[in-house]
């Protein structure tokens, strides 16, 4: 280990930890605990989705058939790619290569913004179609042969759709901010082979946000594609 590494590490060791190992394991464990709270946070929304889908099946089917499955799939792919570049970025930090890390994390940011952009396109589409819950909500299946059977509960589908994807998008925005911070700190020499915990934790966060989308995508877009038509 290079001496500069050790200096960075000593600088980063907080007074109440015995050594770097304890500090690193502690913060990673803390990050996991935080992700547990995030799981429960999204869990409340997933629970609402589950309950209402079980109760108003047909309305949810009609609502989800308005989703643009191709944009959704593209976004899934974009997020998976961003997770790869994030994982590689953390790896670069582990190896003590801040410049490589910065490049990889920059790719992550670009992909993350790409995701948000595509999401914005979808949001815009729903917005102009009056598929935003509230007083202006109006729902048509788009197929005159099959008029909307239960628009009241389709509105609930859209309420949950906006709440779940909106909360997810908010997490993405926060994630982009965090990764930016990591890049700046990393280029400033904050991390080394001996100390890269913040990089690792932001990575965990990013992958978690990816994970949420991995479930949102099938639940909101896919599972009713071929039903009830």
């Amino acid at each position: 280990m290079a001496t500069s590494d050790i200096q960075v590490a000593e600088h980063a060791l907080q007074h109440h930890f015995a050594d770097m190992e304890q500090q690193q394991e502690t913060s990673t464990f803390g990050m996991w605990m935080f992700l547990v709270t995030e799981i429960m946070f999204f869990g409340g929304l997933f629970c609402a989705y589950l309950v209402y889908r079980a109760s108003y099946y047909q309305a949810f089917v009609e609502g989800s058939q308005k989703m643009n499955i191709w944009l959704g799939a593209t976004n899934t792919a974009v997020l998976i790619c961003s997770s790869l570049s994030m994982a590689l970025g953390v790896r670069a930090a582990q190896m003590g290569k801040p410049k490589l890390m910065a490049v990889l994390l920059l790719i992550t940011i670009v992909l993350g913004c790409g995701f948000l952009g595509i999401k914005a396109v979808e949001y815009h589409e729903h917005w102009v179609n009056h598929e935003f819950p509230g007083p202006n909500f109006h729902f048509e299946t788009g197929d005159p042969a099959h008029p909307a059977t239960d628009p009241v509960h389709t509105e609930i589908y859209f309420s949950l759709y906006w709440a779940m994807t909106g909360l997810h998008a908010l997490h993405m925005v926060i994630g982009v901010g965090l990764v930016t911070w990591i890049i700046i700190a990393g280029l400033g020499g904050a991390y080394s082979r001996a100390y890269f915990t913040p990089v690792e934790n932001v990575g965990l966060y990013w992958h978690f946000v990816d994970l949420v989308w991995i479930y949102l995508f099938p639940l909101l877009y896919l599972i009713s594609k071929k039903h009830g038509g």
Partner: protein
Amino acid sequence: MKQMQEEHFDPMSHLVPISLYVTIWAALMVFTGITVFAATVELGVFNIVVALLIATIKGTLVVLFFMHLRYSTKLTMVTVVAAIFFLIILFSLSMTDYLTRAWSTSLR
């Protein structure tokens, strides 16, 4: 054995080879393709089963490899399992109400 010791002392121990990351990434992309394709085929109740099964496989891959759970301490693993456990409690006990409400209507 040597690796075990290193894992304890060196933070670089879970330096996962790039090839593994790329493999996981490829698997995730393939599964995404499969799940989108499966959604366009009429499978009845199996549409949802397939979609959630694939999502769970993808999620597991992300957690195990991208998030390094496979190389983490037992404590971290227990933490993840506990979160899933309480999530299932939230879902299942809520559903005991919604799924059995229809049983208890009194008939005239």
